[in-house]
């Protein structure tokens, strides 16, 4: 049975949201998605899934706090402690196993409520072997960037090209918080706070909520919008410790892609997609993920970024939404955000960002520092 995305709701991403509680932010995203699908959550939804991490929320046992603002009171619901694509995979399984016909998947960021985000990242480090040493935890990204650039042959100028491209294309995305005319030169000269990683190589936190309505084929056909089919989905984690993980090639992305490609019968990824949305919470991550997903040959992602292959109209338009660098880092909602961007492209509803003839897209997520986990989804329209 095919499973499709039939409702897309994204609140505009913003650096702060002082007027909304996080629950109101979720209600806002849910209303948009339900209006898009044309459903009433109190009668038309079989199961609700939220994707969140307690430390990002600021209180314990997040899943106890979620039903009302989604229309999910007294209905089956649970929270996935992971990225939105991992929640989307749960929705696919619930529908394909016959547990539900229609499932809602939600994730959000109210990062502006977090006063000490760096401390939360540091708290994600091993409490015996890593955290006692202190230090700004972005050293993990700086080390990985160094390992990746030297191990793959990509260059730091390529990372600056990614920053410039994603910040600039975000100017065309009405939901983006950080669109700006940043140049490669500016990116390459921004303070090297975690050298080789520079300030502009890192995405900035944003608030926002993404809600998707997902349905089995029969239910999807009755909905208002054209279904975007989830042709394949996968998730994986690398070896769990900083010391044992692969610092050059992100195994979590490679394995998640293998799983999604197997389900979607993708054999030659580099020639299979009209659009890619891959995680770029740090600029080098975009290049690293493109190679892990076999969308670029090893050591060639940077050249693609430099030469315009990743731009709208290029060989493989990548992160034309602006990505996390341009739109903002919405934490566990990052994967769902990119699924939403790809779904709008596939529906031909991406506004000024719309590309021609988008029939199949690949989306990839990473849970952010200091994790080595993420997901991949293959999306398509037609047939």
């Amino acid at each position, binding site marked *: 049975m095919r499973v499709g995305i039939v409702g897309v709701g994204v609140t505009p991403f913003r650096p702060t949201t*002082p*007027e909304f509680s996080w629950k*109101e932010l979720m*209600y*806002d995203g849910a*209303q*948009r998605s339900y209006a898009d699908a044309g459903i009433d959550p109190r009668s038309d939804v079989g199961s609700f899934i939220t994707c969140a991490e307690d430390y990002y929320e*600021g209180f314990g046992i997040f899943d106890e706090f979620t039903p009302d603002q989604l229309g999910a009171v007294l209905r089956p619901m649970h929270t996935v402690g992971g990225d939105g694509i991992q929640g989307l995979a749960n929705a696919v399984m619930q529908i394909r196993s016959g547990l539900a016909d229609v499932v809602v998947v939600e994730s959000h960021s109210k990062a502006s*409520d977090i006063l000490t985000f*760096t*401390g939360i990242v*540091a708290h994600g480090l091993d*409490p*015996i*072997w*890593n955290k*006692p*040493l*202190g*230090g*700004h*935890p*972005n*050293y*993990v990204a*700086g*080390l*990985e*960037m*160094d*390992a990746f650039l*030297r191990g793959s042959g990509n260059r730091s100028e390529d990372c600056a090209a990614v920053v410039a491209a994603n910040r600039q294309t975000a100017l065309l995305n009405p939901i983006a918080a950080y669109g700006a005319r940043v140049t490669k030169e500016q990116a390459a000269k921004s*303070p*090297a*706070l*975690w*050298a*080789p*990683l520079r300030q502009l190589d890192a995405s900035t936190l944003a608030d926002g909520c993404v809600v998707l309505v997902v349905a089995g084929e029969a239910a999807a056909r009755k909905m208002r919008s054209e279904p975007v089919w989830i042709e394949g989905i996968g998730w994986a984690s690398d*070896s769990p*410790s*900083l*010391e*044992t993980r692969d*610092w050059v090639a992100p195994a979590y992305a490679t394995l998640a892609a293998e799983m999604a490609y197997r389900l979607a019968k993708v054999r030659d990824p580099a020639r299979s997609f009209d659009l890619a949305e891959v995680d770029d919470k740090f600029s080098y991550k975009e290049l690293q993920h493109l190679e892990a997903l076999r969308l670029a040959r090893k050591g060639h992602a940077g050249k693609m970024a430099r030469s315009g292959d990743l731009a709208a109209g290029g060989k493989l338009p990548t992160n034309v939404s602006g990505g996390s660098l341009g739109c903002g880092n919405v934490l566990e909602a990052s994967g769902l955000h990119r699924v939403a961007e790809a779904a709008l492209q596939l529906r031909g509803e991406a506004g000024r960002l719309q590309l021609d003839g988008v029939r199949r897209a690949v989306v990839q997520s990473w849970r952010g520092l200091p994790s080595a986990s993420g997901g991949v989804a293959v999306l398509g329209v037609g047939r």
Partner: protein
Amino acid sequence: MTFTERTTDARSFRHWPGNVEADYIYTSGIAGERFFRELRDHGRLMGTRCSECGTQWVPPKLFCEECFKEVHDWVELPREGTVGAACIVGVALDGSRLSAPEAWGLVRFAGFRGGFVHRLLVTPDRARAGLRVRAVLKPEGTRTGAITDIRGFSP
């Protein structure tokens, strides 16, 4: 917009400051206990070796990540390791600029899976992959049996 009315007066927004009171002790475990005793009492860095697949682990593990067998054998690390990746950090945890940037490195040891992510006790221009380094320990008698007993790694 999804709400019928929205506040437009920014002065009226209210929030409640809060924090999480959550203190812990973290148990080193059997493998960690042995590693930190060796470090504190003898100044030695030890790893474990899986008798099933032969993989040598540092930090030491009592179970093998590759074959899931229990691991019993202990082996000492070579004195010298190699920097596999380096990073120069210019900001403190609170975001303030450091007056003297600090070098971090991923230090690998021949024959071992893993290594240490730790400070490199060199000037930033010398901190780079390929540098051969040794652990610099706190003096005997001042070590407490923690990763901070290693001050860092230097050539």
